[in-house]
């Protein structure tokens, strides 16, 4: 069992380092807190204030820690939610990873996107509520939650960005892939397509003979490269072209050869 007196002493030394960190904090809660609680570690404690005895500080601290057992539970409602969040992130991570390397647009998981947005908003609201927290360890927890949220936000936004980039790269071909897109992406495709077409018409197409003014012809539509080679990871034992590959083997193969297996979930793109 750790020696709490020494722990407090140790953390006392670190308070000087934390001071720099706290300098930018809003002082709204500062003066009230010092008047009421005289909490050890409070950054806005004035030098004229009397030193609270160590025993009282510790008792006060224990009371605070006891009150904050609901720290985590404020964010989530029960154990099941915690497990659901993990699955959620696993799904998001997999979608993001696959979308990174896949030449074509993959399916859009509407429910997952909605869940993530809800959770992110909940977190943001919670972090905002925690403004003005003065205890060093509590503040650390808030910082960690903020970083955690930022990480998820990055993955989410990068996933959406890559999808939009693919839509922009092959706008005419994407008209056939609208079942893989969300409503927002559809609207984006529409307006981007209109811009693109009007640009081409103004610059070139209106000035060439009418026979060549069509953008819709098969030769004119850019398709994503289905013949490109990728690195694959076999999640189950698979049979390909007569050869049997065990689970865990990594392969280099053409995208179109492995496409069906990827949709079934037997292989994953690694690069």
């Amino acid at each position, binding site marked *: 069992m*750790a020696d*709490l007196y020494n*722990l407090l002493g*140790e*953390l006392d030394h*670190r308070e000087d*380092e934390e001071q720099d960190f706290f300098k930018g904090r809003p002082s709204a809660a500062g003066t009230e807190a010092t008047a009421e609680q005289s909490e050890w570690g409070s950054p806005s404690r004035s030098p004229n204030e009397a030193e609270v005895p160590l025993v009282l500080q510790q008792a006060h601290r224990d009371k605070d*820690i006891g009150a*904050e057992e*609901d*720290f*985590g539970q404020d*964010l989530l409602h029960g154990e099941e939610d*915690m*497990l659901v*969040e*993990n699955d*959620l*992130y696993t799904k998001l*991570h997999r979608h993001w*990873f696959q979308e*990174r390397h896949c030449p074509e647009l993959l399916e859009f998981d509407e429910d997952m996107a909605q869940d993530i947005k809800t959770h992110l908003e909940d977190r943001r609201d919670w972090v905002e509520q925690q403004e003005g927290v003065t205890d060093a*360890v509590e503040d*650390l*927890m808030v*910082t*960690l*939650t903020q*970083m*955690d*949220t930022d990480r998820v936000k*990055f*993955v989410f936004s990068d996933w959406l960005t890559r999808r939009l980039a693919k839509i922009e*790269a092959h706008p005419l071909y994407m008209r056939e892939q609208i079942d893989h897109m969300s409503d927002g992406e559809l609207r984006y495709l529409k307006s981007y397509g209109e811009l693109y077409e009007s640009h*081409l018409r103004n610059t*070139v197409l209106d000035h060439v003979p009418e026979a*060549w003014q069509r953008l819709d012809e098969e*030769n*004119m539509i*850019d*398709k*994503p*490269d*289905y*013949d*490109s*080679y*990728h*690195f694959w990871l076999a999640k189950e034992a698979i049979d*390909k072209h007569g*050869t049997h590959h065990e689970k*865990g*083997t*990594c*392969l*280099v*193969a*053409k995208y179109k050869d492995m496409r069906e297996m990827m949709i079934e979930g037997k292989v994953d793109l*690694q*690069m």
Partner: protein
Amino acid sequence: MASRKFNLCHEASFCAENTPVTVVPSFSYKSTLPLMSSQRQSSVGPFVAGMPMEVPLWIAKVLQQRKLAQIQIPDWLSPESLTATLTEERQENMLTDTLPFYYFEIARSLQWAMDSKSTMIVLQDLANVRTDKIRSHFHEMSKGDLEKNEGELPEITITGICSIELNTVGPFLQRAFSDYGYLTKSQKQAAGGDFEGEGNTQGSEGFKRPSSLGSRLLKLRKKALS
């Protein structure tokens, strides 16, 4: 192309930071902190000073920087086990699969927490040996099998490949293969004497460059002239 490698490097480090590592915190915190960005853990804590616990690497780095915890270097990252892996790597033809996928990125994150500098030297050697193995593997294969199969690239097995090798040689190999595919398709077309048939569309699909207004104009002109 350079910017793509830059992105790959940062994305690899990002994914590597989700790996769990053992830390020994020097503070106590009774309740748990829910985590959203971890695939394995749904929460972290409670923290008990002096007791080792598992946290994701990015949390461990923050704690160590604030001097609130001590990171324990994982077993596979000790100089002895790395040297053993290096010896094994030099002897075998195939890549060893005992290393975690993000071994290089994890080591790079932890290098300022490591005691001996020899670890990074051994690690660099290991990464070089593995990358060279992949390069030579493909080089040998390209001499042998490709000539027999008349240009159709067989599937190559590279089990045990890790993130650093993928990001170093991956983009180059992908480009090389697709260029090879385009060239062999053109050869097939020339041999078959069928230029304007189905072979043409296949050939143009196999060699994708980002389309621009210029390339569209070229297509229009080609059509006009045909």
